[in-house]
């Protein structure tokens, strides 16, 4: 279970992270990565603190953070299942697998199951085109995915 953090804690922790990266030339992305790692998402309050500390505008920090899908606005589910939906995997039947995942989890892409167990996301190419369809579960890649394998993966995620 993740502890719910107050605005004050977030601000303090963000300041510490910014401080730790103060020697870097372009510190914004490393800071966002660290916060994502720490909180599981990048809270809005943290963005305001980063802007203040790095002497950037709120808009600029928001522009950068929102550009990257992996910097989340809210925490993900306990497991993150990403299915590749790029051309090579599509040609190997990834669209059917995507539909299967949505039905099984009863959510659409970008959603999280109501018990907070699984977040389902699309990804565009994991570099495994030679052995697609491909997926990624909690950072680990899975190749040659099929209906059975996907089912097992979802079951392992606690569904």
């Amino acid at each position, binding site marked *: 279970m993740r502890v719910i953090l107050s605005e004050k804690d977030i601000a303090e922790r963000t300041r510490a992270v910014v401080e730790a990266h103060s020697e870097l030339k372009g510190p914004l992305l490393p800071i966002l990565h660290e916060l994502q790692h720490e909180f599981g998402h990048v809270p809005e309050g943290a963005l305001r603190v980063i802007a203040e500390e790095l002497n950037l505008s709120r808009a600029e*920090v928001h522009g950068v953070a929102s550009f990257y899908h992996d910097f989340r606005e809210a925490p993900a589910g306990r497991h993150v299942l990403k299915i590749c939906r790029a051309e090579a995997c599509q040609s190997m039947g990834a669209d059917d697998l995507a539909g299967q995942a949505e039905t099984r989890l009863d959510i659409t892409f970008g959603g999280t199951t109501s018990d907070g167990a699984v977040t389902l996301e699309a990804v565009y190419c994991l570099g495994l085109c030679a052995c697609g369809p491909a997926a990624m579960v909690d950072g680990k890649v899975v190749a040659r995915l099929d209906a059975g394998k996907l089912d097992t993966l979802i079951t392992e995620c606690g569904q």
Partner: protein
Amino acid sequence: MGLVHETDYGTPASKAEKQVTLTVDGFEVTVPEGTSIMRASMEAGIAIPKLCATDMVDAFGSCRLCLVEIEGRRGTPSSCTTPVADGMVVHTQTGRLKDIRKGVMELYISDHPLDCLTCAANGDCELQDMAGAVGLRDVRYGYEGGNHVKARDTSGEQNARWMAKDESNPYFTYDPSKCIVCSRCVRACEEVQGTFALTIEGRGFESRVSPGMHEQFLASECVSCGACVQACPTATLTEKSVIEIGQPEHSVVTTCAYCGVGCSFKAEMRGEELVRMVPYKDGKANRGHSCVKGRFAYGYASHKDRILEPMIRDSIDQPWREVSWDEALTFAANKLRAIQFEHGRESIGVITSSRCTNEETYLVQKLTRAVFRNNNTDTCARVCHSPTGYGLGQTFGTSAGTQDFDSVEDTDVVIVIGANPTDGHPVFGSRLKKRLRQGAKLIVIDPRRIDLVKSPHIRAAHHLALRPGTNVAVVTALAHVIVTEGLFDEAFIRERCDGDEFQDYVEFAADPAHSPEAVEAVTGVPAEELRKAARLYATGGNGAIYYGLGVTEHSQGSTTVIGIANLAMLTGNIGRRGVGVNPLRGQNNVQGSCDMGSFPHELPGYRHVKNPEVRSIFESLWGVEISDEPGLRIPNMLDAAVEGTFKGIYIQGEDILQSDPDTHHVSAGLAAMDCVIVHDLFLNETANYAHVFLPGSTFLEKDGTFTNAERRINRVRKVMSPRNGYADWEVTQLLANAMGANWSYKHPSEIMAEIAATTPSFANVTYELLEEKGSIQWPCNDTTPEGSPIMHVDGFVRGKGRFIRTEYVATDERTGPRFPLLLTTGRILSQYNVGAQTRRTENVVWHEEDLLEIHPHDAEQRGVKDGQWVKLASRAGETSLRAKITDRVAPGVVYTTFHHPVTQANVITTDYSDWATNCPEYKVTAVQVGPSNGPSDWQTQYQELSDRSRRIEAAE
């Protein structure tokens, strides 16, 4: 007449000296190295289709419409991002390019509504123009797929990509459905304005323009300067006035009537209706930029409070009576003559306005000198920059700033002292920030942490947060460091300054009593920080000093100005681009009103009335004898009124009751007079004590000139007829003639001709020359026929630059047990001066009342909470306002603005003033702050008086 057309070259001009010749579509064109192909092509008269490029911002290369083919190079590079090269052969229209452009346009239009006929930008839309230019005839893609255009899809489901209009800003709307994400607004906000309030959020098809963090414009960091609206090629960001009225059909270039930057604008008109004000790119002060006031806050001109009929009354407890111009002027003239008959020639006078034109100001001082036959003329510059006139006159020989605003582009180290350019002079603030982002260093000397100390991409190298009232000690300590560490520019001083006075000054400054360590206890500025700042200014390259009223409005205002001049001379920072001493003038024509002889001791051109040769110039022209006795200054007029020897005054465009210090004294003075004539747009606070009200005209309703802070004479052009019937210069002429003067000026150009004929620094100024050059910086005479952007180039105007000792003398206004805090005053971006204009515009959404800034420590000690009413009391009086708790101010210092009459901040300020010029000490008042329930007794009483004296009798 038509619209004033401005060519958009697509990318900014290159400053390189080396020229490059290339061929564009068979035409040879020669441009500076570093110019883009797009710009070079436009200079040859060939417009390459474009959407994301505009010459106010750097090339971006995202729209893919401006592609060209270059012989010997592969592919189709974008012309905005490709620099020219010698011998290059460019083709802008080939079959391949046409196909690409048509395809790109088709994609743009496939996610853009096809409502051109009912769109606000119809007729002023670059997307529309480009669709025409590339010959787009058909869009093959429908709206069935993903789009940002339709609120609902074909099956009636909500379209998640669609966003509603953002109407939160009072002056413009943001309609995301019309956005092509060209990023021009984002870049204008960053590069031109320097606020960085906008970004592109998301990526790919999800990319959207976002103010702040997906906020509404009003809630974001946006300062409403209008740069984004100007940059937008579509109707995405559009002025609400254009949406309401429609496109303008003609435009006239004129000058903004707010601050001393003097921005040039195109007043875009539909008939006599003002549609919008658009900053003019050829304006040499603003270079195409604007702020929220000049760009949008002109609504006061048609506000219902504006008085359009002359009014009179016998005493101030009576209601006003509307009368004809004839009756009002005869009434006023008779009263003034009667007063002079009874109390003598010296018993009446005038106050000229820094809001009015040079020509109008000239006439008002002529009225007192030639018709009243005394020198009782003064102006609001008395209460702002009179020490500048004195200090710079004494040291350099001219009472004005030394540079043009363009000079900031070559500055390496900037000292900003007692000024808050991002609020008070926003367009200059933006130009300064641009230079700072390029690497120039900044030193801020101010009790308060102004935005320039730290805001996105700006951080001052040093902030010397001095205690209010200790400017002289700090400036002298800077000189001490420069002198004792041998950082001065000996060659410059030897060549250009008086040697004996320099020796004397060195002896003075080197005294250990003036060291940063010695004065630290008084100033509160850490000695080491001050030393570093001095070294930076003296050794960091081109050093420029910009200062404002935080320097002048002190008991030692003139001394600080002299100290600043000393610093510039010591370091050789005078006489070329990038350096200098630059007073930031508060009002649009405060420089001009001083130039025009508004002061009681000076005839136009800063020449003393004692000087018989100067008097004779005017005497022979005016056919009267001019008094050689300097007249009364504003505070002296009020003193004399209380004593009963000064009985009548004609005040043009100034609200002394609200703007001048020690309100009780001002009101007592006005109340003691028999004839107060107020000539203004509104029944201002002073009018509560007036007997005659003459309706004024706005800057939109008259011809004339304003002179800005860089001595630039800018034309003001009439764009509509005066709603009150007469331009202000005509009203003054009518009053003079009612007193028997027989003036017959038909146009302000005739007044300028008289100014030029009598005043050497204006000798060659004519309206024809202004028409030709756009603007001229005085001195403009036979030696400098085209004006003088930078002064003292080969030597000081007075001959040798003069160092003068600057002994620090603490003000008599001191803190003590009863009044332990120091109050200092200032202003904010959205409001202007006493607020008579800006309070009557939508600008009030940003600032609806004056707030008292107080440090958390001081607030806690007094049990004051944020937003709570507090009583603010000084030795002079007390008032109430709401508190704002912030660490922008240091402990022991409180700060407020004076934009709202109900606050009456000047009830608090004292009548201490500058030793040389009587400029009031607004910036230092010892006060106490405590919790309160609401308005003070004075405020309630004043409100009653104000309501009573503003009654206008119903017409019969």
